[in-house]
């Protein structure tokens, strides 16, 4: 058993060195494809940071002053519910100061100056309003009405805040997804071709192996390992690139004036780690698929 494992790794390594040019091409392609996939994830996460407070059809947010009394809050609540023809009262959500603070830590993740000024005591609480109507004018007139209520700090409308971002985010996502899918297919193809070439270079050995009764799996596994390794190395390169990209972005954003909103495009490092793990898994999968197709099709040499 040990001799078999040692054999597989020895052969994998030998073949790796023999086909260095093709291997480098396959590795780089999968690296670029995976880097794009990773960047797509991070960009989407950045956009979703911006949009986090508008999740779930929320079209209007009524911010309540931090120093509002409980009576004022319940009055505001009542006023919103009264507009039952425009507002979906069942889906009306009140986010208290602690909830708002948590939301803010996400929005201002890349803007530590602003974030440091906020505490769970000085942030506003908020009512998230889901309208029943599709008519923006109706929602807007309601917003003007709420703005005058005692204890209300401000009313924000989704229309003003994020429609542009939302459209932009969708466009960017589609473009990067299509590009990375195409590149991933190219990466599978290149790995497939590398493995096929490696098998062709060793067709005499494969012929002898088959004649002396080596099992197909025994013959295949070094080649499949080789493809897997190519995918994995590609994804490691992609992870490095993504890390560098994210670090540069985070540093660059820190230079912006606080409160411009750009800072919320910064992605937390835990999300970066998850994305890198996804890239590693995808890279391994791409390598395994490419080499498995080659190894099963070109065994009859």
């Amino acid at each position, binding site marked *: *058993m040990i*001799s*078999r494992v040692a*054999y597989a790794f020895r052969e994998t390594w030998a073949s790796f060195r023999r086909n260095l040019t093709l291997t480098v091409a396959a590795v780089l392609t999968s690296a670029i494809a995976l880097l794009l996939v990773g960047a797509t994830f991070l960009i989407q996460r950045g956009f979703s940071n911006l949009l986090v407070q508008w999740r779930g059809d929320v079209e209007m947010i009524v911010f309540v002053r931090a120093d509002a009394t409980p009576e004022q809050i319940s009055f505001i609540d009542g006023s919103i519910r009264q507009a039952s023809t425009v507002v979906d009262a069942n889906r009306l959500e009140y986010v208290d100061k602690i909830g708002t603070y948590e939301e803010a830590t996400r929005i201002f993740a890349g803007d530590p100056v602003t974030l440091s000024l906020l505490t769970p005591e000085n942030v506003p609480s908020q009512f998230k309003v889901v309208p029943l109507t599709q008519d923006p004018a109706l929602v807007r007139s309601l917003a003007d009405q709420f703005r005058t209520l005692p204890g209300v700090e401000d009313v924000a409308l989704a229309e003003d805040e994020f429609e542009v971002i939302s459209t932009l985010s969708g466009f960017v996502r589609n473009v990067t997804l299509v590009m990375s899918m195409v590149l991933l297919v190219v990466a599978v193809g290149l790995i497939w071709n590398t493995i096929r070439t490696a098998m062709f270079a060793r067709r*005499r*050995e494969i*012929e*002898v*192996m*088959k*004649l*002396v*009764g*080596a*099992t*197909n799996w*025994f*013959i295949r596994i070094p080649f499949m390992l080789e493809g897997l390794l190519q995918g994995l190395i590609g994804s490691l390169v992609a992870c490095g690139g993504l890390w560098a990209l994210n670090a540069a972005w985070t540093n660059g954003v820190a230079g912006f004036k606080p409160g411009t909103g750009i800072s919320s495009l910064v992605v937390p490092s835990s999300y970066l780690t998850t994305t890198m793990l996804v890239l590693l898994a995808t890279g391994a999968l791409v390598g395994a698929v490419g080499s498995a197709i080659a190894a099963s099709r070109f065994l009859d040499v």
Partner: protein
Amino acid sequence: MIRLEHVTKRYSSDVLAVRDVSFDIGKGDFVFLVGPSGSGKSTLLRLINRQERPERGNVWVAGRNVNQLPESRVPHLRRSMGNVFQDYKLLLNKTVFENVAFALEVIGKPRQYVQRQVPAVLDLVGLAGKEDRFPHQLSGGEQQRVSIARAFVNRPLILLADEPTGNLDPSTGEGIMGLLDDINGTGTTVVMATHDHRVVNAMRRRVVQLDRGVVVRDQERGVYE
């Protein structure tokens, strides 16, 4: 040991390789398959080690129907037979020792077993002391001895030889035939395809003659004609 029952093999619609071939080969037999090029000798060998499957008929090896064997069992069938070819099929980047050891390593034999068996079989074929040579440093006859060592190192029940003397001069060929005779003496069944009438006439063993895919003669202690 080997039984062919009405075996027919066609490579394409108009190329009939063998037609309705039937004969038995007993354990420990030495059989020559003779006939001109294209008469179907090599095809019969390829049917026996299941590089090919017959279109009709059955091939039995050691009690198993070869063409009904599932793909996963084919390696085990092949481990019970050794193959020797006219062009040796040695791996040029491996030494003599490594070439022979390769046959054991790829079927998962432990290292100690390989270290013990390979020198023994190299001694048997008369290549002791040449373990570290590469194939291009050997004569044709020596290369064929390496390939026989590789075929025999796993002590197969059957040795299939396809024109093993085809590339060798007569005296070197004689040496190879002596070696195959020795291997046959250990109880290994030997089936050898050849059109070298000198070796057939010298050995006086069973001769199965093929002509355009049909058996035209099956004779004990035969000659080439």
